[in-house]
C-alpha cells in the first residue's frame, strides 16, 4: 500500500477497500472457521443465554496515557457484556474514517485492538470500514458490538439490589476521565496519570466463580460512581449509603479535582466495576478481587438500605451526610 493517507476510495468497496482489508485487517483478525469477508458471521448455537451489546467510540484524543480508541473500543464492549455476567466471545468492529487519516495511525489502532482482544480472549468476527469526506467526521470513530454467553445460575441486573447487600468497588476512581482531561489540557503531574482502560471479563468470571449469587455489576463509565449508584437505587427501589473515606481515589486525581472544582465521584472510568452482593459474601469476593491485577485496591464502600429509597447518601469524611445526585450540568465531551 503506497498511500499514506486514507482516501475516499478506501471506503468505496473497490480495489482500495479490498487492499485495506486484505493487508491491514485480515492478517490480524482471521479466526477460522469464521469467514470475515462474508456479509455476516455465523455463530454456532451454544444453547446458552446470549448477551448482546453495542457501543460507539469517539474519544478525543485518539491516543491517551494508558490507552487509545482501539483499546477502548474492545474494553468498553467487553465490559458491557461482562457486567451482565456474560463471557464475551465475539465482537464486530466498524470504522468510520475521515478522508486523509494517516494509515500509520490506523495500523497502530488496529494492532492495539488486536492486542486487547487477545488479552480479553474475544474474537473479532465481522467488520466494516467507511470513509467520509474531510470534515464530515473528526479523524476516526469506531463501533463495536459484542456477543457473550451467560452461565447457568448467573443473573445480574440493576434491579436486583436488596436491603442489607454489600457494595464493592474494584479500585481507584476517576483515572480515565482525568487522564483524558490532562492530555487535552496539558496538565502535568508528579505521578503519571493513566487511563484505567482494561477488560474486566476475567475478574468478573473469577468473582462469579466464588459467588454466583452476586446481584448486580456495573462499570461506572460516563457519569461515574455516583450516577451508576443512583441508577441501581432507582431501578431496585432501595436506598444506598456509601462512605467517602472508603472510596479509593488517587492523589493526582484528587488534587486536580480540588483545583478545577470537579467531584471524582462523577468522573468516568473504563476499567472499574461496582459489585452488589448479598451480605456475608463480601469477604470472599474482596479476597478474589484483591488477588487480581485489576482489583488490587478493591474496597467495601457501603451498603444497600431499606430507608432513603431511590436515593444515594454519602457519609462525608467528617461524619456529615449528603445526597449524591445523578450527574447534571457539564461533563467533558468525547471522553470515550
Amino acid at each position, binding site marked *: 500500500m503506497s498511500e499514506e493517507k486514507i482516501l475516499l476510495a478506501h471506503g468505496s468497496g473497490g480495489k482500495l477497500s479490498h487492499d485495506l482489508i486484505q493487508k491491514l485487517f485480515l492478517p490480524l483478525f482471521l479466526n477460522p472457521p469464521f469467514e470475515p469477508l462474508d456479509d455476516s458471521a455465523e455463530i454456532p448455537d451454544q444453547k446458552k443465554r446470549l448477551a448482546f451489546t453495542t457501543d460507539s467510540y469517539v474519544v478525543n484524543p485518539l491516543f491517551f496515557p494508558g490507552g487509545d480508541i482501539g483499546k477502548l473500543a474492545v474494553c468498553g464492549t467487553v465490559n458491557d457484556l461482562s457486567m451482565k455476567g456474560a463471557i464475551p466471545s465475539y465482537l464486530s468492529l466498524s470504522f468510520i474514517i475521515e478522508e486523509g487519516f494517516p494509515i500509520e495511525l490506523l495500523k497502530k489502532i488496529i494492532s492495539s485492538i488486536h492486542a486487547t482482544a487477545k488479552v480479553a480472549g474475544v474474537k473479532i468476527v465481522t467488520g466494516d470500514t467507511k470513509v467520509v469526506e474531510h470534515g464530515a467526521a473528526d479523524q476516526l470513530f469506531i463501533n463495536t458490538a459484542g456477543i457473550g454467553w451467560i452461565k447457568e445460575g448467573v443473573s445480574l441486573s440493576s434491579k436486583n439490589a436488596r436491603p442489607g447487600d454489600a457494595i464493592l468497588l474494584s479500585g481507584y476512581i476517576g483515572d480515565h476521565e482525568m487522564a483524558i482531561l490532562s492530555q487535552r489540557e496539558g496538565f502535568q503531574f508528579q505521578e503519571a496519570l493513566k487511563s484505567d482502560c482494561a477488560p474486566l471479563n476475567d475478574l468478573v468470571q473469577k468473582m462469579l466463580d466464588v459467588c454466583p449469587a452476586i446481584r448486580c455489576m456495573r462499570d461506572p463509565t460516563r457519569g461515574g460512581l455516583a450516577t451508576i449508584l443512583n441508577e441501581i437505587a432507582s431501578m431496585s427501589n432501595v436506598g444506598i449509603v456509601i462512605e467517602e473515606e472508603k472510596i479509593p481515589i488517587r492523589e493526582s486525581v484528587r488534587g486536580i479535582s480540588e483545583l478545577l472544582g470537579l467531584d471524582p465521584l462523577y468522573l468516568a472510568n473504563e476499567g472499574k466495576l461496582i459489585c452488589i452482593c448479598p451480605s456475608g459474601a463480601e469477604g470472599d469476593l474482596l479476597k478474589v478481587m484483591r488477588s487480581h491485577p485489576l482489583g488490587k485496591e478493591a474496597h467495601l464502600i457501603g451498603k444497600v438500605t431499606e430507608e432513603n429509597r431511590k436515593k444515594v447518601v*454519602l457519609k*462525608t*469524611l467528617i*461524619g*456529615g451526610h449528603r445526597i449524591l445526585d445523578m450527574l*447534571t450540568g457539564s461533563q467533558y465531551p468525547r471522553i470515550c
Partner: protein
Amino acid sequence: MKFVDEFRIQEIAKGLIERIKKASTKPVQLMEVCGTHTVSIFRYGIRGLLPEQIRLISGPGCPVCVTPNSDIDLAIALCRQKDVILTTFGDMMKVPGSTSSLQKEKAEGKDIRIIYSSLEVLRIAKENPEKKVVFFAIGFETTSPTIAVAILRTKEMGIPNLFFLNSQKRIPPALYALLQLRQVKINGLILPGHVSTILGKAPYQFISKEFSIPAVITGFEPLDILQGIWMLVRQIEENRSEIEIQYKRIVKEEGNLVAQAKIDEVFEKADGHWRGIGRIPESGYRFKEAFQTMDARAFDVEVEPSKEHPECLCGEVLQGIKIPLECRLFKKVCHPENPIGPCMVSIEGTCHTFFKYQ
C-alpha cells in the same frame, strides 16, 4: 493529600461540633459570604451536624453570579465582532445574558476560548496578531492581582491587540451595602479566606465598629469552617464583635502587600454593578489612565437592551434574603442544564449548590 487531609479528620470534627453545641445558647444566623464556603458546607454535610439553632445563610460571594446581565450582553456583542477572540473563565460560558449566552455564541461559530490562568491571554494575543483579543475579566480580590499582572505585562511587552473587559468586584463595599440594607438578620459573618489572603483584616473593620457584628476570616476545609463557626458562636455568646482570623496558616493581618500594590498600580476604585443588588459605591475597579487604551468598554459595539427573567430570584438569593427553594423556577424550569439565572450556572452559585447537594 498534604494540607488537605489534616483538615478533614472526623474525630476533630466531632470535638469541634461538641464545643459549638456547648457554647451555643441562642438561635443565630451566620452568613457565609463566599461561594466556596457554601460548596464546602454542603459537600461535607456541615448544616446537618450543627445544632438546629445555628442557621447558615449564603451570601454574595460568587463572582460569576454577581456579574450583571449588561456585562454579559456586552461580552456577547464583542464576541460577535469578526476580528475579536473573546477569552474568559469556563463558568462564564453558560451564564444567560438577555437573549443569548457565550456558549450559544460559540456553538454558532464565534471564537470564544476558555482559559484557566489570566496570563494565557497574552499567549493567545501574540499568536493572533491580526485579531483583537478581549479578556472578559471577572473575579474578586483573589483574582484581581493576576489580572493586574496580565495588564502590566501586556504594557511591558507592548502587545497592541489585547484588551480587557473588566467586570471585577470588591467584597468589602458589597458587605457594607448588605449590612446597611438590613434586609436579613445577620449575627455573624464567615469571611472569605482567599479574598482576605490578599486584603488582610483592615478593610473589614467596619463590620465590628459600625455594625457590631462578629466576623471570622475562615478557611475552606470542613475543620476550618467548623472552627470558624465555633469562634463566631463564642464571640456572640461573649458579646464581642471582632474581626478574627481562623485561617492563620494562609492569611496575614496585613494581607498580601505585593498583590495589593499590583492592583493599585493598574486600577482605581469605582462603582460596581452587582446583579440583583444594583450599583454599590466603590465596589468595582476602573483602569488608571495609563492603561485605558486596553479597556474593551471603549469598543464601539451595539449592545442589546438588558433584561432579566422576571421570576428569577438570583438577586435575593445573593443577598441571603431568599433561599433557592423559595424560587418558583428552581428545579422546575431552572436547572444546571437550562440555567435561568447565574446562581444556577456557577459551581459556586447557591442555586447550583442547593440543586446538587440538597
